[in-house]
């Protein structure tokens, strides 16, 4: 089939080799790195991760026994953040608590992404009565007040005498099951609008199999929204977990958590006289959540530069 000389094709002056153009994800990554808030967020978050997961190995008190005689010492050379009422080093507790809070935050978000993502895409892609059921369920959960339900479930966990180490997993699932609705609705509405786009109609005309439509066309276009809301979701999950633990209904001793450390402020003397007990965990939560929000916002701009807000 001789080549048709339709009109001389585009000039080849600017010929460059056939190397693959940088993928769309690498472009987004470059835009992400150009955003100074993102860098700030990344720095803080990496610090918090190192502080929590690597820090403890540098602490001399890693296997120190509880020694009430050394309790409630203010910050000093040996104990940079002083000691708590059981004589434990507050700095070490903070690090160990960080592990728990970060793990729960991420795990809860993964659950949210799993449930919300799946139900949202099924409702959006297949529609019909499936969509109605899922959305009806979402309405119900959305109507119920979040915090009271969390508190109630926390109280039940205490009654069921669930051992502290297992409680962490229950808290993750609870947080996940309560807050998947937002993401499900977001994904559903995005899929519905994508399905109207001409390039999705084109996949129908081309006769592509459903699997190809979902994996190569819908998924890459929904992924950015999922990544952004998942990132912001981690921040939300950490805040909820620490609130629950602060009320003594989430993670409870001996498992350390920032929220529970903060509840030290409930006793008047510690609150007024020993701020080193409860201020550091508060600052830790704030730093982590601010960092995650910076990253989430920068990701949103990186993926969709047009939506500059």
């Amino acid at each position, binding site marked *: 089939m001789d080549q048709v000389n339709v009109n001389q094709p585009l000039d080849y002056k600017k010929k460059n080799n056939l190397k693959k153009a940088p993928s769309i994800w690498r472009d987004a990554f470059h835009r992400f790195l150009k955003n100074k*808030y993102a860098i700030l967020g990344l720095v803080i978050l990496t610090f918090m991760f190192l502080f929590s997961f690597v820090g403890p190995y540098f602490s001399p008190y890693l296997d120190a026994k509880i020694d009430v005689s050394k309790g409630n010492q203010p910050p000093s050379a040996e104990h940079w953040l002083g000691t708590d009422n059981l004589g434990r080093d507050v700095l070490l507790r903070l690090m160990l608590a960080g592990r728990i809070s970060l793990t729960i935050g991420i795990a809860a978000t993964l659950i949210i992404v799993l449930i919300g993502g799946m139900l949202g895409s099924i409702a959006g892609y297949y529609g019909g009565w499936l969509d109605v059921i899922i959305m*009806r*369920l979402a*309405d*119900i*959960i959305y*109507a*119920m*007040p979040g*915090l*009271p*339900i969390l*508190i*109630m*479930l926390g*109280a*039940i966990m205490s*009654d*069921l005498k669930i051992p502290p180490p297992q409680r962490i997993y229950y808290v993750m699932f609870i947080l996940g099951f309560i807050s998947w609705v937002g993401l499900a609705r977001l994904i559903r509405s995005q899929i519905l609008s994508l399905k109207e786009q001409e390039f999705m109609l084109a996949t129908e005309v081309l006769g592509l199999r459903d699997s190809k439509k979902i994996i190569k066309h819908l998924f890459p276009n929904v992924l950015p929204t999922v990544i952004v809301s998942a990132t912001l979701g981690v*921040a939300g999950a950490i*805040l909820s977990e*620490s*609130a629950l633990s*602060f*009320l003594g*209904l989430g993670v409870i001793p001996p498992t350390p958590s920032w929220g529970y450390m*903060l509840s030290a*402020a409930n006793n008047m003397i510690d*609150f*007024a006289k020993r*701020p080193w007990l*409860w*201020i550091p965990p*508060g600052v830790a*939560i*704030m730093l982590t*959540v*601010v960092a*995650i*929000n*910076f990253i989430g*916002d920068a990701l949103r701009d990186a993926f969709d530069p047009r939506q500059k*807000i």
Partner: protein
Amino acid sequence: MTQFIIRRLLQSIPTLIGASIIIFLIFAMAPGDYVTSQLQNPKMTEERAAQLRALYGLDKPLPQRYISWASGVLKGDLGDSLLFKKPVIQVINDFIWNSFILGVAIMFFEWLIASIVGIYSAVRQYSVFDTIATLLVFILYSLPSFFLGLVMLKVFAVDLKWFPLGGMITTGSNYTGWAHIVDVAKHMVLPVATLTLISVGGLSRYFRANMLEVIKQDYIRTARAKGLKERTVIFKHALRNALLPLITLFTLELPSLFAGAMITERIFNWPGIGKVVLEGIYIRDYPLFLGYTMLITVLTILANILADVLYGVADPRVRLK
């Protein structure tokens, strides 16, 4: 319009029933109940406990208990609070209005500040104000409410002693009239400041995004092409459109006026429904907690309907014939 309201009410009935079932199931999951937690005190004997349970109908099978509870709720009888030994309705009525005053004050300041900051930073985009405001909003947006509350108490109450350490009125004082109002106001400052700062971040970002979206529309360019003053273009043409989605947001926030911020009320020892219900949960006062959660769920559903109706009234395009 009425047709729309009827349809939305009918649609929300299944949601309400579904929510009530789930909430009741959660409570039913609880292993013990009030009665068992009483077993510790010596006077309580086994068969006395059985009698009590029968009295409260705790021994019947689950669906039956749900039916009796639900029918009670429909008749407005939410059962008795175990903590206060009085009908839940009364307990709620006693404390909810304290939460309401706090809620109204918070919402007022929140919307006032957020609208000013949001609109100004949208109109003056990329200005110094805008960058600082965005940064500040970001930090406030990520603060845990209880931590901010504690810090406020520590700084302003304990150290500087500008404001009382908590509660609603100075203990032991029986001011009346104006003095009482001033006293309550003084007690309100810290909790209101805390919750306003927490919520102003998200709302001002929303104001800013909305204004930016509207400002780049064609009809704003038309308004400028008419030679109108910039103030008219922004406050008459742009703002009216930017406020539309915010009506929905405002209405959806109304239930929070009644819900009361549990944690903040506890930190500031503010005698609102939030604090009371929270204390109730520690001694497993399920009827009170159940009643409270249902009330908030109903209010949320009604707020959703009201939001759609108000949006229809405000936006001529949607004005439902």
